[in-house]
């Protein structure tokens, strides 16, 4: 097995046992990236020098017999909407094309403290707005399993990088499914933690009440490991819970009780691809065979989730993105100097934002504007409560919920770009968890006849990530979908 094909936990083990140096790992990985990047286009920015010098630092620590962190020597990719001090952070937007943050996001600081090596910043839909990574202002990332397909989004770069072994693990952000959906399209494990489990400080906001950072990895153990590192309280995020973080790694293979798994009818109905449906049915059988009880469930308000989401998310986004005005940082339109400030703003933003971002800002401002607030924003906030209640009721009866991550496998590049609504509807199964704030994990559970990965989603109670990981690990122990790698032998 080549170095870059290892999981993060394995490569860390080999580095800390001095079987290989961190420098060798980074060099080998960079070689592979440079070979495959032209094909997949996952990275917006590679920090080769930074990665190599950090690798040397860790090797030195190890040779001096010093203690090293939980991610010692592991090269990690970071979605380019998380601030990295001194390293360009663009959100895949022209408006931040040359923005170099003067500070590290909380999660970035955490992984640095655990001796991870940041290898680069990955592509995304501009400001994380999209489900295909086609909305990037800079490049289109391809799905490693089929380069004519999208990798999913918005964390498409991170998901593709992990899938193509171009990073050992990655961080993504999930506002409506942006970690889980691309993980499922690329055959990765992806987890959206409970809202408030991981600090959002330094995550460039799309929709503040929905955004949550999560790991994208090659297997469940790596997800547990990365979640362990990034979870916990942060004084710089008022919405971050001050709860103790359990040990996600210990006992991950043990599931004591007989679990009740909720199977929500609404997620298996019309619109679900039949191959995905049958993969899910097979997966449920594996759980049953391991002693779990399946419980038929209804989440009656989830059919309103997409509509609710597109009001709340765009309303928050319209305000969050108001700061990109060309005054303090970022792009400013080169207008003649006698133009007034309003024109400067409007031109700057017209030049700096892509169409999807503009569309959502317009929609959000519409939903909040005088006369529409009650009909849209307030109405959606109420329906959001109904959706949350659906889950709370369900979790009185079951320990977790299993459903598909997406109604279809990865679709073709260009297929849905002209129909925004159709694109929005592809997140129908992932959005409810963001609205309710509950955690969800997507793991590989099969392949379509065309060879595209299928994702299974496990949803859990608030702050019950540990159970999700155990459930996912049980499935992984019984199957080998996660071990399959894309061929990547296509030519550019």
């Amino acid at each position, binding site marked *: 097995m080549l170095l870059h094909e290892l999981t993060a936990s394995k490569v860390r083990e080999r580095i800390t046992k001095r079987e290989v140096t961190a420098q060798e790992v980074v060099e080998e990985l960079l070689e592979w990236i440079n070979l495959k990047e032209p094909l997949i286009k996952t990275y917006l920015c590679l920090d080769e020098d930074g990665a190599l010098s950090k690798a040397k630092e860790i090797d030195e620590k190890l040779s001096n017999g010093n203690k090293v962190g939980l991610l010692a020597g592991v090269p990690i990719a970071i979605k380019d909407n998380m601030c990295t001090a001194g390293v360009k952070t663009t959100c895949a937007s022209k408006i931040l094309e040359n923005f170099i943050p003067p500070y590290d996001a909380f999660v970035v600081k955490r992984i640095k403290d655990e001796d991870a090596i940041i290898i680069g910043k990955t592509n995304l839909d501009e400001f994380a707005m999209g489900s295909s990574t086609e909305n990037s202002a800079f490049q289109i990332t391809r799905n490693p399993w089929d380069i004519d397909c999208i990798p999913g989004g918005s964390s498409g770069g991170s998901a593709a990088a992990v899938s193509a072994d171009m990073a050992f693990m990655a961080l993504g952000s999930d506002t409506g499914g942006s970690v889980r959906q691309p993980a499922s399209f690329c055959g990765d494990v992806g987890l959206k933690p409970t809202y408030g489990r991981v600090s959002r400080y330094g995550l460039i906001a799309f929709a503040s009440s929905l955004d949550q950072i999560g790991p994208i990895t090659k297997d469940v153990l790596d997800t547990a490991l990365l979640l362990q590192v990034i979870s916990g309280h942060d004084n710089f995020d008022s919405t971050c819970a001050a709860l103790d973080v359990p040990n996600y790694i210990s006992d991950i293979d043990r599931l004591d009780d007989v679990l009740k798994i909720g199977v929500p009818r609404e997620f298996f109905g019309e619109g679900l691809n039949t191959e995905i449906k049958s993969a899910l049915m097979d997966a449920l059988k594996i759980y049953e065979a391991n002693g779990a009880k399946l419980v038929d469930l209804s989440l009656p308000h989830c059919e309103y989730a997409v509509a609710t989401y597109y009001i709340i998310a765009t309303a928050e986004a319209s305000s969050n993105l108001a700061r990109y005005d060309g005054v303090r940082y970022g792009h400013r339109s080169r207008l003649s100097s006698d133009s*007034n400030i309003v024109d400067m703003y409007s031109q700057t933003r017209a030049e700096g934002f892509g169409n999807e971002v503009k569309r959502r800002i317009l929609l959000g401002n519409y939903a909040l504007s005088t006369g529409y607030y009650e009909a849209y924003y307030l109405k959606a906030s109420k329906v959001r409560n109904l959706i949350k209640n659906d889950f709370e009721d369900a979790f009185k009866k079951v320990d977790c919920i299993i459903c598909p991550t997406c109604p279809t496998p990865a679709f073709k590049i260009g297929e849905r770009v002209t129909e925004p609504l159709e694109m929005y509807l592809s997140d129908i199964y992932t959005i409810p968890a963001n609205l309710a704030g509950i955690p969800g994990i997507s793991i590989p559970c099969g392949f379509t006849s065309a060879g595209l990965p299928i994702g299974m989603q496990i949803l859990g109670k608030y702050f019950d990530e540990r159970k999700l990981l155990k459930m996912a690990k049980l499935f992984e122990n019984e199957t080998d979908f996660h071990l399959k790698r894309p061929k990547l032998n296509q030519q550019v």
Partner: protein
Amino acid sequence: MDIGLKEIEYIANLSRIALTDEEKKTFKKQLANILDYIKKLNELDTDTVEPMAYATDLKNVFRKEELTPSLSRQKILNLSPSNVNGFFKVPKVIE
């Protein structure tokens, strides 16, 4: 709930985004399409439902009243598209 050209122009101005006539037409069509889908919410009677304004149950989160260092002015101004004499420079603002 119809959205016309006037509404598009109004929210484009609120949004501070300059739009071409072509863009106005496209966005009008797309937003109308999305808003039409969103109408779905009206199927639900929410008169007695409380809005969910927060995604957490947290309350009373404060920081201690304490000074922490500011960023150096050079670092701040280095980020800016235009500055002069320690100030950010913008097109003339008329009150």
